[in-house]
C-alpha cells in the first residue's frame, strides 16, 4: 500500500464494516484477476496531510448481495440506483475508518460510484490491493496515493 497503514488494519476495517452493516463474512483471498471482468467501483478521496483515495470494487454478484442486505430485499430485486447508493455508503465507511488511521488533519469526500468498471481500471498496477471473497464473488480494496489512478 502507498501509505503507512498495515494491510492487517485495512482487513479489519473491511471485515468489520461487512459484518456489522451487512451481516456478511468477508474472507481475505489471493489475487485472482481471472475471477471477474467487471466491477462496481466506489471511491472516496482524502485530502489534507495525506492525499489519495480509497476505492472499493465489488463484482456485480457481491454488489447485489450487499445492496440486498442493506435494503432488506432479495439480491435479484436490487435496483441499479440502490446498488450505487449501497456501494457508496460502504466505500464511505471503509474510507472514513481508514482516514482515522492517518496522522494529521484530513478531509473525506462524498463517495462516487461507477458501474461496470473493467478489472484493469480497478487495480492500476503496480498499486497493492487487498482481495476478499464474499457470497461467491470478489471484493477489492485499494488505497491509492495521490497521482495514482483511477
Amino acid at each position, binding site marked *: 500500500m502507498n501509505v503507512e497503514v498495515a494491510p492487517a488494519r485495512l482487513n479489519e476495517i473491511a471485515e*468489520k*464494516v461487512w459484518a*456489522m*452493516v451487512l451481516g456478511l463474512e468477508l474472507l481475505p483471498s489471493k489475487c485472482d484477476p481471472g475471477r471477474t471482468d467487471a466491477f462496481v467501483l466506489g471511491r472516496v478521496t482524502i485530502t489534507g496531510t495525506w492525499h489519495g483515495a480509497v476505492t472499493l470494487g465489488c463484482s456485480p454478484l457481491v454488489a447485489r448481495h450487499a*445492496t440486498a442486505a*442493506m*435494503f*432488506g430485499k432479495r439480491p435479484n430485486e436490487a435496483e441499479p440506483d*440502490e446498488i450505487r*447508493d*449501497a456501494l*457508496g*455508503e460502504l466505500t*464511505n*465507511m471503509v*474510507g*472514513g*475508518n481508514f*482516514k*482515522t488511521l492517518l496522522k494529521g*488533519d484530513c478531509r*473525506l*469526500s*462524498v463517495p462516487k460510484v461507477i458501474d461496470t468498471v473493467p478489472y484493469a481500471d480497478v487495480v492500476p498496477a503496480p498499486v497493492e490491493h487487498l482481495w476478499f471473497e464474499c457470497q461467491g464473488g470478489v471484493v477489492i480494496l485499494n488505497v491509492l496515493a495521490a497521482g495514482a489512478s483511477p
Partner: protein
Amino acid sequence: MNVLVVDDSSAMRKIIISALNKTELRGARTIEAASGKEGWDKFCDGNFGFILSDWNMPEMDGLEFVTKVRNIDRRVKIIMITTEGTMGKLENALDQGVDEYVVKPFTPETLDRKIKKLLGVKVA
C-alpha cells in the same frame, strides 16, 4: 416524538431507522431527509425531539446543518452518525451543538445507549 433522520444515503437511512426501532425511541415517528439542506427545510416545518444526522453530505454537510439548527433551537437532541472517529473533529462537532455521536458502523445497542443517555434513562 418526531425524529428527523438526515443522510444522503437511502440505504443508511433505512439502517438507522431499523436500528431506531430497537432503541428507546421505538415507535417514534421518523421523517427522512436526503441532505443537510432538505433536513433544514424539514426541521423548520416540523416539531422534532431528536435529530440523527450524517456528517459527510453534499450541498450542506451535517456540521453546517447542526449549526443552523442550534442557532434557533437549543432543546432538540442531536446525534451525529459519522465515519469521523478523529477525536479533535468530534470535539469540534460537540462544540457546535451536537449532543452525542455514533461512529459508523454501529450496532443498535450503541445507538440505544446514546439515546438513553440523552433521555436520562438509567441503564441497568
